[in-house]
């Protein structure tokens, strides 16, 4: 088929859907919305649960600075994942590995710093109860962020959904931890590692699972469309 013939045939197909489209918003245009979501979650948290018990002994700098560091890391991870919405741009494996490693390291470093400056409260006999409440709370905080990120990825043409899922998963997990850090005063490593870090890893896994599942679903649809029609049995 000559280029002219191909163009004519293609043009007929395109003419079926000539509606103008709104281009995807650049990431910097999404930043105010992201900030609004985080501020909304923060307001709800502080209004319902209140700031951590040792907020006064920590002082404003050691109360807010660790969370801001974690939030900055989360924004970077989410932005890296959302780059995948545009074909021809996106994540390489090393960036994903560095992102996951840096996210977890930031969480651990900030935890050590906060523990040194904080009241040194330990969960002690309440370890099991606090484990589930902190784990659940962080998961609940992370899920809306993950859902919004997944919707943005869904709107684009994400060519590597599993990778993007991992990046936005760890980003959402770290973001939720940054918020919950303002509430949970317990700094003992057993609690932090079992409740907080585990929830970050779970959200990461959830992000990967969503990306992977979506990729499989898309592939199944592709197969269905591309498969030659089955001949009627005689």
């Amino acid at each position, binding site marked *: 088929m000559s280029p002219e013939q191909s163009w004519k045939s293609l043009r007929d197909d395109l003419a079926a859907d000539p509606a103008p489209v709104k281009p995807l918003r650049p990431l910097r245009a999404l930043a105010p919305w992201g900030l609004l979501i985080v501020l909304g979650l923060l307001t709800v948290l502080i209004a319902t649960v209140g700031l951590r018990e040792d907020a006064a002994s920590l002082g404003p700098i050691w109360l807010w600075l660790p969370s801001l560091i974690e939030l900055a890391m989360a924004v970077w991870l989410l932005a890296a994942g959302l780059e995948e919405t545009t074909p021809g741009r996106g994540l390489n494996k090393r960036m994903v590995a560095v992102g996951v490693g840096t996210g977890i390291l930031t969480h651990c470093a900030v935890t050590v710093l906060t523990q040194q400056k904080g009241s040194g409260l330990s969960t002690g006999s309440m370890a099991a109860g606090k484990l589930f409440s902190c784990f659940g709370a962080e998961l609940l905080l992370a899920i809306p962020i993950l859902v919004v990120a997944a919707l943005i990825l869904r709107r684009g043409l994400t060519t590597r959904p599993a990778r993007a899922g991992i990046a936005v998963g760890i980003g959402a997990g770290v973001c939720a931890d940054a918020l919950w850090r303002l509430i949970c005063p317990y700094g003992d490593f057993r609690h932090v590692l079992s409740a907080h870090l585990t929830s970050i890893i779970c959200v990461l896994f959830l992000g990967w699972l969503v990306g992977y599942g979506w990729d499989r679903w898309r592939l199944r649809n*592709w197969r269905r469309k591309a498969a030659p029609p089955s001949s009627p049995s005689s």
Partner: protein
Amino acid sequence: MPIQRAADAAPSSARASDTRDASVSGHLNASMAAYQAGNIDAFEVVYHHLRPKLRRYLGSLTLNATLADDLLQETFLQMHRSRHTYLPGRPVEPWAFGIARHVFLMDRRSGIRRKRDQHDAIPDEMPLPEPFSDSTDRTHLQRAVATLPEASREPLLLHHVWGFSFQEVGDLLGLRAGTAKVRAHRAMQQLRSLIRGKE
């Protein structure tokens, strides 16, 4: 020894992207913006500019003329469905090649056409890297390029034929720019040794 001389003269830093015509690029961007605004005819400019490049790119990926033609048409349809993902002001080519690669990978992963078309190699249409493009023995070179491993052939062609920077190649293939550069360099070395072996 024309091929040998061409291979030896191949500048490692040859970058066709430096010579990419800025006015053509601007015209393409404007056409894409008009197309996004609902002007289907504006896409004709994009189509005629991209068609030969994408056809050869898909040919180099599939090594199969029939399949490349099918995937080319599917690529343009996918571009239409995903036209909102083009960010105005950004270069059109990396976006279009990204979609073509996605279409190719989805088709390959679906495994539907693999068995049917696997023996229809197209070395005749295999593009040649810049230092070899004027060579008299094209068929021999095209066969040599076709025998390169896919992982290194793709960065080589994207950089030396279509003029993408290594950063763009890395973004397209999901690799670091440095890895893309190393793979392209290895492919060029392999190509030189293949040519030397034949002579």
